[in-house]
């Protein structure tokens, strides 16, 4: 297997851990690596302990590793917490004067980060750039790569800012280079293999904008606030309105109102906010209004661990809303998938005139992935059965074989578009009679037949001689695939089955795949194995075990392998 190169940057909240990490991640991407970076931070503005991990590999990487090559410690606490995670031969960069910590250990490189920032760049705020320079100097990455990253990162602040940052980076880079210590970065092609590095949330926003989302309403909540912020910023130029409103109840009802009036609309929140949106979700189901919901999971119940990750809202997403109505639930596996899931979600929402959920989590939302450039010419817009009508007899909820009614928009023709959260007749007026009720319930649920035809099938990878199949969904994809690679290298090949869409449930495909190996083991980020329960409910198949994680942290591939060995006997 090809080797990886891992950097951990740690410090207090407010020290700029994330900005150093972003520069390192972008530099390694430009250096030709596949990069995965994740953030671990506390629910506070200053102090505490935050870290950012950057992982570079010559082959594709989409998971974290607990083994560090380079520890960039912006404070003493980072050394205390993470020194034990160093690989043999791993190095530490830290500022001995600033941290007032002295050690003779040979793998500690004392870089006067603060002093260099003041002396070379004349600005102590440049300390992070000095640190980034030192890290890449030690790793032996071409300085020109770092120069290009800084130019892009700081270009909008003007030429002088770029110049100062380059000077600061150079100071750190040269210091490390002349230290006599060195780390060997794996060899790579000089030209970047991947065109972009971006977070799951950024990819999802690009998908939403490409799909023509024109209205977003929300109330800030981790990990979805960055979606609201990105759309608010870019929307001014690209014709999308983002409203920061009084609460999530308002956000959902606004998005449904906008959807009824004919624009593609979206809300983005986390579990607590989604709990407030649930009545509005049912409203979208009843009024057959398209709306896209991004549910970025974090550990619950209630406020839980606000800045951490979990996959415990699978059932919540599946069952949210009183009464019965058709929906689709996507669970993107990575950033590229988040982009395409967003596009598809908007198409399905309009085609089937019903809510569509995108179930992500903090890990996918806030981690950075290297991806190929998204191809916007491949983005197809399907607005379903939109009609222009002047008919006085137009019926918004006409009963059809597919369950989908021709959809006119209010004010764009003379036809009156009437709908109601009460049960209604074809014309949208309130009713009480049993026959109409039955006809409308059945019509709405028939839309599931169409949705089933368009499902994203689970991704199955079979391995020669596999004794078991690892089954997962959503953001655990990278970790599970890498675990499978580790096991294969170890002479214990496994299959993997991964869900990118959870509803409608792809029962037939699942039944076929789960027969392939003797054992099926679910890997998911919750305490009750919701996917295992869903599989049993929909297929009758009981999996043989579950590897569960609910400590708020993402799975690493190594952890999956170790726990498989420990918790699953005989395979």
């Amino acid at each position, binding site marked *: 297997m090809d080797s990886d190169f891992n950097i951990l940057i740690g410090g207090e909240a407010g020290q700029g851990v994330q900005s150093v990490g972003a520069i390192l991640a972008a530099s390694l991407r430009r250096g030709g690596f596949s990069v995965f970076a994740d953030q671990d931070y506390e629910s506070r503005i200053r102090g505490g302990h935050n870290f950012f991990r950057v992982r570079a590999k010559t082959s594709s990487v989409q998971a974290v590793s607990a083994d560090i090559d380079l520890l960039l410690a912006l404070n003493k606490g980072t050394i205390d917490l993470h020194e034990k995670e160093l690989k043999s031969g791993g190095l530490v960069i830290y500022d001995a004067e600033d941290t007032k910590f002295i050690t003779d250990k040979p793998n500690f490189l004392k870089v006067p980060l603060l002093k260099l920032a003041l002396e070379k760049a004349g600005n102590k705020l440049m300390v992070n750039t000095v640190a980034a320079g030192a890290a890449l100097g030690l790793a032996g990455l071409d300085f020109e790569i770092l120069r290009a990253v800084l130019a892009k990162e700081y270009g909008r602040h003007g030429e002088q800012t770029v110049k100062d940052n380059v000077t600061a980076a150079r100071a750190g880079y040269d210091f490390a280079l002349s230290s006599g210590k060195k780390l060997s970065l794996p060899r790579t092609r000089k030209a970047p293999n991947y*065109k*972009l590095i971006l977070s799951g949330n950024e990819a999802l926003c690009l998908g939403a904008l490409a799909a023509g989302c024109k209205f977003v309403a929300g109330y800030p909540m981790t990990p979805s606030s960055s979606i609201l912020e990105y759309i608010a910023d870019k929307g001014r130029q*690209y014709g999308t309105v983002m409203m920061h409103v009084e609460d999530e109840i*308002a956000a959902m009802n606004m998005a449904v*109102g*906008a959807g009824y009036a004919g624009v593609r609309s979206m809300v983005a929140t986390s579990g607590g906010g989604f709990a407030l949106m649930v009545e509005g979700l049912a409203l979208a189901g009843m009024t057959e209004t398209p709306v896209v919901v991004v549910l970025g999971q974090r550990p619950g119940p209630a406020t839980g661990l606000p800045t951490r990750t979990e996959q415990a809202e699978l059932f919540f997403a599946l069952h949210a809303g009183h009464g019965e109505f058709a929906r689709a639930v996507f669970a993107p596996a990575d950033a590229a998938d988040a982009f395409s899931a967003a596009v598809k979600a908007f198409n399905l929402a309009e085609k089937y005139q019903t809510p569509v959920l995108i179930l992500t989590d903090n890990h996918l939302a806030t981690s950075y992935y290297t991806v190929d450039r998204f191809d916007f010419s491949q983005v197809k817009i399907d607005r379903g059965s939109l009609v222009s009508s002047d008919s006085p007899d137009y019926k918004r909820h006409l009963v059809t074989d597919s369950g989908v009614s021709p959809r006119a928009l209010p*004010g764009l023709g003379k036809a009156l578009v*009437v709908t109601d959260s009460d049960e209604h007749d074809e014309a949208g007026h309130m009713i009480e009679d049993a026959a109409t009720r039955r006809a409308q319930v059945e019509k709405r649920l028939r839309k599931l037949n169409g949705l089933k035809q368009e499902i994203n099938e689970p991704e199955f990878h079979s391995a020669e001689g596999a004794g078991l199949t690892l089954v997962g969904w959503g953001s655990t994809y990278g970790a599970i695939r890498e675990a499978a690679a580790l096991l294969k290298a170890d002479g214990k090949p496994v299959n993997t089955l991964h869900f990118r869409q959870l509803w409608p449930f792809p029962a037939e495909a699942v039944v076929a795949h789960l027969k392939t190996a003797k054992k099926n083991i679910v890997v998911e980020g919750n305490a009750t194995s919701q996917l295992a329960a869903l599989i049993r409910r929909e297929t009758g198949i009981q999996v043989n075990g579950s590897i569960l994680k609910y400590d708020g942290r993402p799975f690493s591939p190594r952890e999956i392998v170790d726990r498989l060995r420990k918790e699953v006997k005989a395979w």
Partner: protein
Amino acid sequence: MVTLQDYESKVPNAWCPGCGNFGILRAVKKALVELNLEPHRILFVSGIGQAPKLPHYTKGNVFNGLHGRTLPAATGAKIANRDLVVIGIDGDGGAYGEGVQHLLATARRNVNLTYLVHNNQVYGLTKGQASPTSELGFITKTTPLGASQPLNPLMLALASDISFLARGFAAEIDHLAGLIKAGVQHHGFALIDILQPCVSFNRVNTFAWYKQRVYKLDEGYNPTDKAAAILKAQEWGDKIPIGVIYKQERTVYEETLPQLIDLPLVKQPIDPLKIENLLDEF
């Protein structure tokens, strides 16, 4: 030329005989006819209750949504298509109870909507429980010890710096139609609180009770004087004012949005390729 005939609906009416809602319905139709607005240009957004059934008993586009959530749904629709004339309809339960936070937020935001609140000081649809505007001590099945201090919706609206505030009376149909016209024509958010006797569940605030107390604000009253409006909004008891309580010209939310300058959102094309240059930032 729009006529009353254009606003007649064939949907059977489910209100109680003698309900104050009938007067309000007549005033709504009269106002829209006098404004010469065709039904397809109107979007009625309403919640749940007896009042919110009103849109079914006339003509227009109708989004009859959730209890208390009229204003958010109306706001979303208005931002999506600013050409629609959007009229929200609720009772006092939805407007001042379940959804009161949306009233404050919408008044502050100042979206160009007209909001009619049929205020009968009692819950009708759920059969006679106390509402946020029921009088102190009003005894019902859910408040056997009597209702709490009533909320003053006019003061609440003024505290949110509302741009148009009026009070009407269901039995004064021509006067109410005039208020609705003024509200629809007003540039910004308009709240019209409508005193509406409930013949089934409110034996206190009856037609006769109101007729003895209600009086029309005359030309001597200056509705642009906020200090005067704050005093007028507190007048209740022996004398109850109806008319325009307060109005001001204030920035309208959707007019601050650069996205809406050229065309309503709903008429703007979708072009994925337009987004492509955003990739250069990553």
